[in-house]
């Protein structure tokens, strides 16, 4: 039990911090204090990750698993949380908001994500997904006086509860089939159950729907654009990286680690869905003039690339992982940068001629966008490259062709933003931007990461290599 507790120390720290923030917010502390508490909490939690004992395999009687996968992902989730918190600090909130509660939710969402990625039991998976969802609904409509934000929250809620409900039904079927919800025991049982593929398939599909909803894979992606659009910028940025990464982590964990899906049809289904995701994401983004929606659809398309890698089985796993990590940084950077440059407007016109007024900002945003598009030698290129490698290695030439076509389409709309920044004349109205250190830190770290991983992808690859050893 002691070791169990020591395992979840980072989560406990987060919970403590969250509670402290809730209280501090309630007693009306100053904004700056809340910011500091939030950052400190995440930082302490991050450092406490080093103290997590490595010798135990599972804690809380199998509820959580302590392996390289979960360890890396928990660290990763904390990084995401840190970026989100920093971006939230730098963000100019347009209306009065409850900052204490806001950080409370962000930290609790982080806790849920950490539980999700280290879960060893279907119960934990369900609960953490549900917790993450509930918090997300609240965060999405955090501008409660804003119609768009509220609508986003409601839509997210309506879509999300159905997904998690269906997932729950799938889990119940798994329970019926195997008599257990422990992932490792399920794995053992599955071998016995080979004759009952259809029921298992039904369960798998329902569970898959729940994960795919988080990972925004077609046709479970429809909420993405509307929710990102309505949600506040930092929240949208958070959604685009945190829950999505968790969705993919769970897909990997459940469908690879425990091969819930029978591999014979997994590839087929996954390829079809990946293709659909790429097409729908890219083509929907094609005409967008709303940068936030554009980025939302682009994140759908990016999910498609990642999923295409996953469809290739184990060979694509590392590529997909690489992609997720890179994607997090470039997408976060893009969101943070647009939100900073466009001063909270999401129309593309707000970015007109920004290269004259803010050359560095325009440059950094271009880096993120081109990296998202996959231009070498930025990190996004390597991400796509490894995905393509795995696809071609598996001889899915057609899929590779489609991916490449989609990249072309994607180039169009990413470049459209870049074009607006560089080719157009600036707007006559001078916008004043508040540049805070936290924004700078977010932008700089993401930009560095994107460029560094572009020039020396080896470092990240070696790191991932440890994971898959």
């Amino acid at each position, binding site marked *: 039990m002691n070791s169990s507790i020591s395992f*979840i120390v980072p989560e406990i720290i987060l919970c403590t911090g969250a509670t402290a923030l809730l209280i501090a917010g309630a007693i009306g502390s100053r904004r700056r204090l809340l910011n500091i508490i939030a950052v400190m909490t995440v930082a302490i939690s991050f450092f406490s990750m080093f103290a997590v004992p490595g010798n135990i395999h599972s804690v809380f*009687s199998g509820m*959580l698993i302590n392996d390289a996968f979960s360890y890396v992902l928990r660290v990763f989730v904390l990084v995401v949380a840190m970026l989100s918190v920093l971006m939230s600090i730098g963000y100019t909130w347009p209306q009065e908001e409850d900052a204490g509660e806001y950080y409370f939710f962000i930290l*609790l969402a982080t806790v849920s994500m950490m539980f999700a990625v280290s879960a060893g039991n279907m119960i934990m998976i369900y609960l953490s997904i549900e917790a993450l969802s509930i918090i997300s*609904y*609240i965060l999405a409509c*955090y501008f409660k006086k804003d119609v768009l934000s509220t609508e986003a929250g409601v839509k997210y809620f309506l879509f999300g509860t159905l997904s998690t409900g269906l997932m729950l039904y799938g889990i119940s079927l798994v329970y019926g089939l195997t008599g257990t919800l422990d992932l490792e025991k399920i794995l053992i049982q599955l071998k016995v159950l080979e004759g*009952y593929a259809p*029921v298992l398939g039904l369960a798998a599909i329902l569970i898959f729907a729940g994960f795919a909803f988080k990972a925004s894979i077609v046709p479970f992606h429809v909420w993405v654009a509307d929710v990102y659009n309505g949600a506040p910028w930092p929240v949208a940025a958070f959604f685009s990286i945190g829950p999505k990464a968790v969705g993919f982590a769970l897909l990997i964990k459940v469908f690879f680690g425990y091969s819930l899906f029978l591999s014979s049809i997994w590839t087929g289904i996954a390829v079809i869905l990946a293709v659909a995701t790429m097409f729908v994401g890219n083509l929907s983004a094609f005409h967008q003039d709303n940068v936030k929606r554009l980025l939302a659809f682009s994140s759908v398309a990016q999910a498609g690339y990642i999923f295409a890698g996953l469809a290739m089985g184990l060979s694509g796993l590392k590529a997909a992982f690489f992609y997720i990590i890179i994607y997090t940084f470039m997408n976060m950077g893009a969101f943070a940068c647009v939100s900073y440059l466009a001063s909270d407007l999401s129309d593309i016109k707000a970015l007109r001629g920004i290269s004259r007024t803010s050359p560095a900002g325009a440059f950094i945003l271009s880096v993120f966008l081109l990296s998202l598009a996959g231009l070498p030698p930025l990190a996004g290129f390597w991400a796509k490259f490894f995905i393509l490698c795995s696809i071609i290695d598996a001889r899915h030439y057609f899929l590779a062709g489609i991916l490449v076509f989609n990249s072309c389409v994607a180039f169009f709309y990413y470049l459209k933003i870049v074009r607006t920044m560089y080719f157009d004349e600036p707007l006559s109205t001078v916008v004043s931007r508040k540049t805070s250190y936290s924004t700078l830190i977010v932008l700089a770290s993401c930009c560095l990461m994107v460029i560094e991983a572009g020039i020396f992808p080896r470092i990240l690859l070696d790191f991932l290599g440890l994971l898959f050893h």
Partner: protein
Amino acid sequence: MSVVVFYFLAFCIGASAVLSVTVRDVFHSAIWLTLTLLSIACLYFYLDAGFLGVIQILVYVGGIMTLFVFAIMLTARIGDRSIQQTNRQLWPGLLISAGAFTIMLKIILSGPWANLITLNPGIDLKVVGRALLTQYVLPFEFISIILLAALVGAIVIGKVKE
């Protein structure tokens, strides 16, 4: 005898569930839902899960349904019978849910359910309680976080500043 009871409960559950999504009045549908939930509670009793049955009645019928009714009251006028309650995709919706039902049924009935006839004599409440606080203590604690979050969320969103 027990077979009759089951079919009766099943009928109650099914019929009231269908009614709860088809009657025009939202208020009525909430009441039908209550009936469904109650029948399900009975089914739990029938399946030797008395504790769950009690929880079902307490939390659902007592808690959630009250909330529902409050919500229906708060959002006035929507109980009006004259308002269209179904959207434009009634028929596609019906079709696809019927299709889903058929196909899920077909798939599920191919399952190994006939093998599961061990019929354990009923699980002691103590076992459940102990499991909850030992083996499943983490989920159990986690639920409290979820509830806390939901509570705070409800306050944050629900409170109206003048």
